[in-house]
């Protein structure tokens, strides 16, 4: 026990004598949470749009104004014909073309029906899909507006026939994230990302650094047993991880007013269980690597897999079944889901206990492996 305490003391001394690491532990969460939630977002905004208005009429003008007023679109140009609009798209100057027919006004007044043509650059699939959805919403809105106005201009008997057409309005109620704020969804993910980077990479480089500097030889000829040695390596990262998590939680609150709707205790407990597993994983890599270069390459490779298949950016349910299998043993996906549940859905410790148990089992497995793979002699 005394030896573990002394080993841990040594790890902390080394950590705090490194000019970079203590600063990184504090600044990293703040910087990541300050910058990334704004940049990494699937919200599609500022789609550049070209409108080819063949009618140049009152109604078409109103439709164009409505599109330009939307926060999703920027009116890039109003070229005279479809061909020049297409030219703009091919040059990458515009993302979407809306073509309004010459008979737009006439059709609306006479037939109560008209069509606009929409062409979307869907190289970026999400932008293409969402962009055309937004346009459809705007056009639908516009037609409801017109409909309400036109009804009043009609003779009573026709008005009645129009009124009798049943109309269904869908009014979505956005649960858990009422403002549809993408940041609220992403921030818990960024917290997991931070823990993965700090508590995954630092342990992965730790033992291999002792190998490179040769100090491992001196440790290996001492009677220290390997459980004590590995524990003394892990515990500092558990503490560092918890500090990073606490800083992240407060940073998210101060910057975005985001506070878990569920239990804060549950947030910290799940973070700790996750840190146990990811730091064990880092040490395994360190045990199997001979050089820092090997270790950094390996840890980057695996962390990339954990993150991309972890459901932070794309939902696990949409992945192929092999990827879902990986997610089932990926602590990253467990914590991402757990934190989102606690932050957004208001889940309690009991609600996430199943996921915590799964993470705990993964942690037990990885740390056991870390102890066994550390060999005091080759």
């Amino acid at each position, binding site marked *: 026990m*005394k*030896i573990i305490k*002394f*080993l841990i003391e*040594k790890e902390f*001394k*080394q950590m705090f*004598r*490194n000019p970079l690491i203590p600063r990184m532990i504090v600044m990293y969460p703040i910087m990541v949470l300050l910058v990334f939630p704004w940049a990494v977002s699937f919200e599609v905004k500022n789609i550049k749009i070209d409108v080819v208005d063949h009618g140049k009429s009152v109604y078409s003008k109103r439709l164009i104004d409505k599109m330009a007023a939307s926060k999703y679109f920027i009116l890039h140009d109003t070229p005279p014909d479809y061909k020049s609009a297409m030219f703009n798209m091919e040059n990458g100057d515009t993302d979407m073309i809306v073509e309004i027919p010459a008979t737009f006004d006439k059709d609306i007044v006479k037939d109560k029906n008209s069509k606009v043509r929409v062409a979307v650059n869907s190289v970026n699939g999400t932008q293409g899909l969402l962009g055309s959805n937004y346009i459809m919403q705007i056009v639908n809105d516009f037609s409801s507006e017109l409909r309400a106005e036109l009804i009043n201009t009609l003779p009573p008997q026709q008005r009645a026939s129009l009124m009798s057409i049943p109309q269904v309005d869908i009014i979505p109620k956005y649960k858990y994230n009422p403002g549809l704020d993408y940041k609220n969804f992403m921030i818990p993910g960024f917290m997991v990302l931070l823990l993965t980077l700090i508590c995954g990479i630092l342990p992965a480089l730790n033992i291999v650094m002792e190998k490179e*500097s*040769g*100090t491992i*030889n*001196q*440790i*290996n*000829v*001492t*009677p*220290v047993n390997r459980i004590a040695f590995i524990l003394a390596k892990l515990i500092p990262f558990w503490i560092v991880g918890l500090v990073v998590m606490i800083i992240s939680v407060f940073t998210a609150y101060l910057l975005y007013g985001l506070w878990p709707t569920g239990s804060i205790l549950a947030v910290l407990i799940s973070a700790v269980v996750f840190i146990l597993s990811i730091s064990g994983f880092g040490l395994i890599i360190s045990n199997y690597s001979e050089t820092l270069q090997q270790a950094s390459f390996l840890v980057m490779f695996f962390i990339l897999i954990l993150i991309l298949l972890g459901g932070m950016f794309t939902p696990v349910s949409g992945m192929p079944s092999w990827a879902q299998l990986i997610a089932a043993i990926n602590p990253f996906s467990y914590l991402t889901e757990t934190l989102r549940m606690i932050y957004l859905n208001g889940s309690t410790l009991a609600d996430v206990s199943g996921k915590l148990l799964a993470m705990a089992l993964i942690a037990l497995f990885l740390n056991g492996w870390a102890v066994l793979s550390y060999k005091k*002699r*080759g």
Partner: protein
Amino acid sequence: MIEVKNLYKSYGRADNIIALKGVSFTVNDGEIFGVIGPDGAGKTSLFRILASLILPDSGSAIMNGHDVVKDYKTIRQIIGYMPGRFSLYQDLSVEENLKFFATLFGTTIEENYHLIKDIYRQIEPFKNRRAGALSGGMKQKLALSCALIHKPEILILDEPTTGVDPVSRKEFWDMLARLKEQGLIILVSTAYMDEAGRCDRIALIKEGEFIATDTPQGIIDNYSGVLWAVQGSRMSVILHELRAHHLIKSSFAFGDKIHITVDEGLQAEELKQYLINKNFEDVNVFPIEPTVEDCFMALTN
């Protein structure tokens, strides 16, 4: 007492790099035993096996009655190991390093201070300095202190004087002599042949094999050839000339001289005249006592 029998060790995927080819020797209590040989001869592999850091492929090593493979836990208590490269924590201070290793062995600096006093006193003024900022000689003293702090019975020092200046090297050997008086068995390796004289017995190692094991004087006494030194002003040209002479068996540059071994039939005066005739006027040829290095050269040729 150390008893090593038939140690084999090879590396590589197909075990194609053979580091030790059946090494056997014994070291008696209170002896300084030197393993002397060039880089890559297998010294470090041998010492790492004895320090229980790697396993031998076959063979056995018993140190003070404990097997290095089976009783490795006891071995780690009774040996003090100093690897060839400075392997203490560079970002910890001198005192922190010493305290760290004392604690890992379940002891304290105070308890065993008398063992390291002579050595540690010299670096104590710098005890708050980071180990990485010490000079080469001071690092050596710190490493030796750390290897001694748990009162080992056997010291295993892998090339402790490599990269250390001549004054510090001499000091270091003086320290080893004093430790020997306290009854420690000291196993030390070096690539410097001139350090052989400081050992009680030495083993010459080449390509994983001990080619001779004896006292330094015994090794020299066993030297059978006729050894002369040649001195002159244009050394490299002389060396070239000597190598072409059919009665000269070997010739090596040795500092400011050339050491040559010759056939019984040749006389020194005769060779001198031969060289003078070849326009090396200031040349001088005289018989000399062999050194360990001459013996090593003779044994490996």
